[in-house]
């Protein structure tokens, strides 16, 4: 049974943060209170029935006192273009928080956060929650170019290493080039980004014997596990089966995902 809420959220800010990239801040106090890192919301992009479906977005941050939810997105089609055109005071239908988020450690420990491109969105929220629990966080952040790098704000206990494909910031190359910088004292890792990146991260971490979780992305219709449209192949025990990214994920133990 879903604990999700269906609310009317007021747009507080729509900011262009890079070419085709936007930050959307919504007034949705109940969602801000309930959301956990790794969970997502389904946003209706207008009031018409075309484009039809809601769009899923990871929660990139919450301000529980102000009752605000922050989303980061790239304009990839008609739905996201409509959202990019919203202005303060506009009202959007929000369904969420949805899905299974990241497992947070019980005690303060060292964690690695590995994100590529828009995959950094849920990890920004995660980094803040981990720091609030006294964890030490090393963030490995990758992007095409420096302008598309979304990294946590500087904070004690949080160290950010950067890689860009065009070499405009940090180490040139993919974020996986930074994996040797995950220190031995790190107890677990969290990753989100393109599937190929996640596959490479999971393989390397498996080799090192480090457990972790990955946040997956898939086309979705319902967002609550009803339509079975967003499945990915996972291992349950010995057996490979389909799991819904929306309800059984989007966060999965890295060892459960069938990467082929």
């Amino acid at each position, binding site marked *: *049974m*879903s*604990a*999700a*809420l*269906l609310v009317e959220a007021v747009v507080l800010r729509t900011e262009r943060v890079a070419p085709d990239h936007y930050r959307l801040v919504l007034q949705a106090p109940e969602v801000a209170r309930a959301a956990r890192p790794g969970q997502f919301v389904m946003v*209706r992009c207008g009031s018409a*029935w*075309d*484009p*039809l*479906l*809601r769009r899923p977005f990871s929660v990139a941050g919450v301000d529980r006192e102000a009752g605000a939810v922050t989303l980061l997105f790239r304009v990839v089609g008609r739905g996201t273009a409509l959202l990019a055109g919203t202005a303060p005071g506009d009202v959007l*239908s929000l*369904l969420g928080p949805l899905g299974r988020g990241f497992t947070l450690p019980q005690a303060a420990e060292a964690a690695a956060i590995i994100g590529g491109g828009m995959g950094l969105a849920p990890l920004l929220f995660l980094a803040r929650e981990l720091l609030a629990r006294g964890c030490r966080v090393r963030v490995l952040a990758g992007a095409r170019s420096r302008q598309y790098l979304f990294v946590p704000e500087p904070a004690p206990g949080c160290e950010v290493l950067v890689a860009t494909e065009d070499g405009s910031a940090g180490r040139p190359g993919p974020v996986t080039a930074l994996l040797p910088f995950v220190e031995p004292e790190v107890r677990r890792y969290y990753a989100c980004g393109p599937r190929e990146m996640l596959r490479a991260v999971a393989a390397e971490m498996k080799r090192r014997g480090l457990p972790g979780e990955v946040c997956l992305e*898939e*086309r*979705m*219709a*319902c*967002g*609550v*596990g*009803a*339509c*079975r*449209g*967003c*499945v*990915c192949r996972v291992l349950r025990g010995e057996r490979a*089966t*389909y799991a819904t990214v929306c*309800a059984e994920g989007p966060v999965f133990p890295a060892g459960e995902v069938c990467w082929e």
Partner: protein
Amino acid sequence: MRPRLRVKLGRLELKNPLVTASGTFGFGREYAGLVDLRRLGAVTVKSLTLRPRAGNPPPRIAETPAGMLNAIGLENPGVEWFLAEGLPFLRERGVPVIASIAGETPEEYAALAAVLDRAPGLAALEVNLSCPNVARGGLAFGGDPAAAAEVTRAVRKATGLPVIAKLSALVTDLVAVARAALEAGADVLSLINTLPGMAVDVDRRRPVLGNVFGGLSGPAIRPVAVRAVWQVYAALRCPIIGMGGIVTARDALEFALAGARAVAVGTAHFVNPRAAEEVLDGIERYLAERGVADFNELVGAAHGGG
């Protein structure tokens, strides 16, 4: 005075004409925290098969103009799970349940009907004769009057429950298939299932869906569905559950006026989980504003001639 909403479809009586379309509302539990299930006339659950079914490889969905394609492939946890968990959950919440069934042979449909016949609390069986996304069964039965009749007859023999035959509009002679299903013992017809379609990813130069083809649903197919209801009602005057792209009360009223005695909300749930409730509210308002005492007065009214 509040307008009367109770409808009678053969032996199937519903407190109001709003039901959920199979495959769009899971087993009700997925939406239980968001929707007041007791308000619905009935919940039609996702199609059940004898054994659990894994479904098709992803991607399974694609958005299209005012609609979407799906190729889920009848993924479901199987009828045993439904009897142990799915059905009790809905019964506890006091909502009538319609079980949708699918098989690869008439014998499989009959076996499902026999198992479900003994289940307490089922309002009816809906025989899915029109799933476009499976290699065997589904549309292969619904596309042909003789095959549709054979499956319906097998189900009819295996159960005392009201039987609903869910048909596709993608047939040469829909009235012939509808008549065959009714003569074989169907009490009600569900019109229509999704329409076969496909989308091609022009960047990857490959089909979007893992299954290549999918079923088109949403507002895009509504005119096709309304036509199907009109045509079958005109020829057969039988009880019909109309569906296909209903997102508002006015859409549902189109179906009723064309001849549907009940209506199902489907894809709209993905956009608005409360769509069925809101359509029901809108129908009540329409009836009250126009001084129509009973929803049944609207059924088929667009055909004229009284």
